[in-house]
């Protein structure tokens, strides 16, 4: 019962939204809009839950004096710093902006930029024309890179056009094929969900 009732209510909500999409009946549309509104409010709670979860985890790490405890402490300090600044002084305050500009902006951009070095390493050591398929992949990657870099158009005028062709024709076609397949996949996983067959997301049986 502890699983069946939630699954049943969830399915019912899902069916209402699907029905409202197809059927022209005012009360159904109103109910569907209300359910979506609930979805937003619950998601906002979920966002806060994730933060509370994180705090618990790092408090535990500090309490257990794990090797990463000092880092956990630093994490908690900045967490409470930005939260307090945001809640009490507002999202336009100097304090909130300090954490955003001083930590969030530079560190997230740095990590994503760092992957460039891995990519360069892969470009030199791993992207090899080992087989027919790998050769196709390489040629298309080179065409896109040459077309989007100025160096390409200096070598041959046609590279930028070729890059747009690769992206807009064979790439878009493959993507379209995958998309149609994925939409069908979404549909069947939706059916499993509404029928209550897929329940892994509810966690283990207790």
């Amino acid at each position, binding site marked *: 019962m502890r699983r069946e009732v939630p699954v049943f*209510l969830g399915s019912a909500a899902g069916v209402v*939204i699907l029905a409202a999409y197809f059927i022209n009946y005012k009360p159904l549309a109103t109910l569907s809009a209300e359910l979506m509104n609930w979805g937003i409010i*619950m998601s906002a709670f979920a966002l806060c839950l994730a933060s509370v979860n994180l705090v618990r985890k790092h408090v535990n790490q500090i309490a257990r004096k794990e090797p990463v405890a000092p880092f956990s402490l630093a994490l908690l300090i900045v967490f409470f710093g930005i939260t307090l600044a945001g809640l009490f002084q507002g*999202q336009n305050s100097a304090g909130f902006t300090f954490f955003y500009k001083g930590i969030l902006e530079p560190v997230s951009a740095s990590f994503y930029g760092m992957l460039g*070095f891995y990519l360069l390493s892969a470009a030199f050591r791993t992207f090899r024309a080992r087989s027919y398929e790998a050769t196709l992949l*390489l040629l298309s990657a080179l065409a*896109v890179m040459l077309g989007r870099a100025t160096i390409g158009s200096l070598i041959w005028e046609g590279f930028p056009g070729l890059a747009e062709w690769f992206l807009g024709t064979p790439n878009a076609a*493959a993507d379209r094929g995958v998309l149609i397949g994925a*939409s069908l996949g979404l549909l069947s996983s939706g059916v499993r969900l509404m029928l209550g067959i897929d329940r892994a997301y509810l966690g283990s049986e207790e």
Partner: protein
Amino acid sequence: MSTDLTVWLAGILTLCAYSFLYKENPFYRLAEYLLVGVGAGYALVVGWTNILQKAIQPLQKGQIAVLIPVVLGLLLFTRFSRKQAWLSRYPIALMVCIGAAVALSGTIKEQLIKQIGATMLPLNSFDNIVFVAGVVTVLSYFFFTFKPTTAIQRGSALVGRSFLMVAFGSMVGSVAMLRTSLLIGRIDFVFKQWFHILK
């Protein structure tokens, strides 16, 4: 040299992050943990603003119906209790099913029917022929339960896989560009905004 404390912090943390390229070290780890802490705090603040505007203020105005999602939202927090954790299944099941139904309703027309329709191109140019052939063969590559008995089936799947490889190549090429511009952004920051070496 910049005299702004925020710029200094940002600069030092940028260097901490890149120190990973030499090897994994505590400075790198510090940057990672600080990022997670600030990101979570940020999410909490904007999430709370949503709750305030969409739940608490309407409740104060007497809109009792809002109580339902609020209670459901609060039930999420029962996950921290071993005994009551099952209660959190109500909001989770609702969120997952509402999300799936919303996505599903849009998928049928916009991503299935319209995408099929947009592929019906007149076969009067090389590009159109390649495009239609690409979509059809890629679809045929993802047949799993039909036995590939005829040469057409096998050939089509093979061509489809080739189209996929070209698509992957385009993505690899594009991602390479993304990563370089991010790197450019960081180097620009360090040398122009922090050290003022370059103009």
